[in-house]
């Protein structure tokens, strides 16, 4: 009898302690993304590090206008001095070859969270995510590569809204994201792993929101090197020249579908190509002959 009472008492105590433990948990026990984060490139390696192929628009919910921008894009445009140091937009910056540092800024008197700061090594980008509820600037305020960001915790997840962006990439092969775009980010932390999910809305060039995730691993020993950039005249060109392909004349557009055996129609992208069921449709599409592999002696 005494032992039964003891067991019941122990159970009550455990339940009570559990409630106490829950009560003692801070109300704002959100997943803090602060830390030194090292990128992992296994996800979309070929697009990120060697760089995307010309004419590869697969999986992008782009409209016809953006497709034409990609077709007209000439990679030598990046040689123009005014373009050499163009930074990545905040929505694309996660994809860069960058170590990331995230830290909190709190008001010392109240200890309230004022902002998160994010330093991205590529292009020395220093970004602020305001957490103090301030409004976004008016539409006549300047736009920037990183835009204007405000955040809040939705459950445990830091959720960030950004606008006032300069034009930038959707994919680094001429597929543009306009300066009218906005995006939402979700910082998903699982211990030493951080996944940043970015959802881009562009009324100019996207027919559906474009969702992309990028992964990082906590690296407390990370030392981030500076990333200066100084434009130089790489090629002597007449003033004002803008390299571009006249419509219908880009000779490189079929290289990607031929090399990878992707139907050329699928390579043109569009919202439909984002979804798994599109694979069935691809089976019915014509493909280009694969280029013959050169023998070592010919290379």
């Amino acid at each position, binding site marked *: 009898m005494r032992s039964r009472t003891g067991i019941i008492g122990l159970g009550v105590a455990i339940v009570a302690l559990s409630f106490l433990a829950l009560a003692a948990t801070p109300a704002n026990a959100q997943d803090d993304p602060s830390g030194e984060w090292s990128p992992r490139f296994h996800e979309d390696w070929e697009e990120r590090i060697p760089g995307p192929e010309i004419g590869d628009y697969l999986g992008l919910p782009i409209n016809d206008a953006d497709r034409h921008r990609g077709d007209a894009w000439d990679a030598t445009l990046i040689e123009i001095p005014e373009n050499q140091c163009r930074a990545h937009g905040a929505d694309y910056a996660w994809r860069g070859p960058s170590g990331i540092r995230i830290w909190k800024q709190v008001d010392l008197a109240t200890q309230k969270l004022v902002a998160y700061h994010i330093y991205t090594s590529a292009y020395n980008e220093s970004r602020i995510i305001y957490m103090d509820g301030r409004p976004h600037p008016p539409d*006549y305020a300047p736009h920037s590569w990183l835009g204007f960001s405000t955040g809040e915790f939705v459950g445990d997840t830091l959720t960030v809204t950004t606008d006032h962006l300069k034009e930038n990439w959707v994919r680094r092969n001429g597929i543009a994201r306009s300066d009218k775009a906005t995006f939402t980010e979700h910082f998903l932390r699982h211990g030493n792993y951080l996944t940043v999910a970015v959802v881009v809305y562009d009324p100019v060039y996207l027919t559906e929101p474009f969702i992309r995730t990028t992964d990082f691993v906590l690296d407390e020993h990370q030392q981030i090197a500076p990333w200066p950039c100084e434009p130089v005249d790489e090629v002597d060109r007449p003033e004002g020249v803008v390299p571009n392909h006249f419509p219908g004349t880009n000779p490189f557009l079929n290289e990607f579908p031929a090399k990878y055996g992707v139907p050329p129609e699928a390579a043109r992208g569009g919202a439909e190509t984002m979804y798994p069921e599109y694979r069935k449709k691809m089976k019915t599409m014509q493909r280009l002959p694969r280029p013959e592999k050169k023998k070592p002696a010919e290379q």
Partner: protein
Amino acid sequence: MPSTFAKVPQSNRSLRKALLLAAAVILGTLGATAVAHTQENQNAAPQAATPLSGPGATQAPANAEVHVMHVQGKVYMLVGAGGNITVQAGDDGVLLVDTGLAPMSQKVLAAVRSISDKPIRYIINTHVHADHTGGNEVIAKAGETIAGGNVVGDIGASAGNQATVIAFQAVLDRMSAPTGQTPAAPQGAWPTDTYTTHEKKLYFNDEPIEIIHEPNAHTDGDSIVFFHKSDVVSTGDIFVTTTYPIIDMQRGGSINGLIAGLNHIIELTTPKAMQEGGTMVIPGHGRLCDQSDVKFYQEMVTIIRDRVQKMISKGMTLDQVKAARPTLDYDPRYGADTGFWTTDKFVDAVYNSLSQKQ
């Protein structure tokens, strides 16, 4: 001094209505083909302006607001009065680049007074259009010139009674008229100090100011204004963020002159880091910018010009060029099917400008 964003924008709808009303009224002063446009997302300007007559001539757009934004140094941007207005203020007084629509003059003056109580000494007109010169008369009269020496000789005995209005000579030619004919704008709105050379320089508020003529660009009377110490360029309508560039061929504009103007703005500006910041650029319409924004725009305009030029070289007619849609990739950003400056009219202007014998 105002905060960075002095006023919260009110309803876009009411602002648009007010500005369109004002644009319709003022366009009449420059004739039925006058060119003007309104702020961001307000391309639906009147199809054809009506002659200036009746109560519309003085009816102010009651709901429109003028917003003040500090740019950097001694320079501010006023938004909402028609074309963007640049204000430079300091111990010497106030200098304005453009004056907006006439019905907005009192609100522009109030905005200027929120920045400085010093006298308005100079107005510089970037070009002739009424959304940039409409406030000349009222605002100039509210100012005063430090007269004496050869200044009186240059601009007349009444020089001290109003601010000096500086513009390229073609602006005065187009606003005025030979004796006996009706001028396009009242005399009180005319420039009082014109220049005919490549540039005119001022030193005002401890700052060198370069007024540079850009030949045959948006019109034949365009000036851009470079504030050297504040590191700000005010471009007039050679650069806008809201629409395809407006090329007023009836007033001497041309696509190649406009591109030359954009190239010159890029040459004048220096980014601070990563192609951002540094020299700030106040466009004729739209948001505050820097060099990279001008560069994106220059790339767009140049690519379209190159395409149309190539099509002309192939012997394509205007209709064939339009059918080929040389602007397709930029239409969702800058194009319009309705309103004052449609994509169709832009392509017309590019084609006709390139087809003109040089």
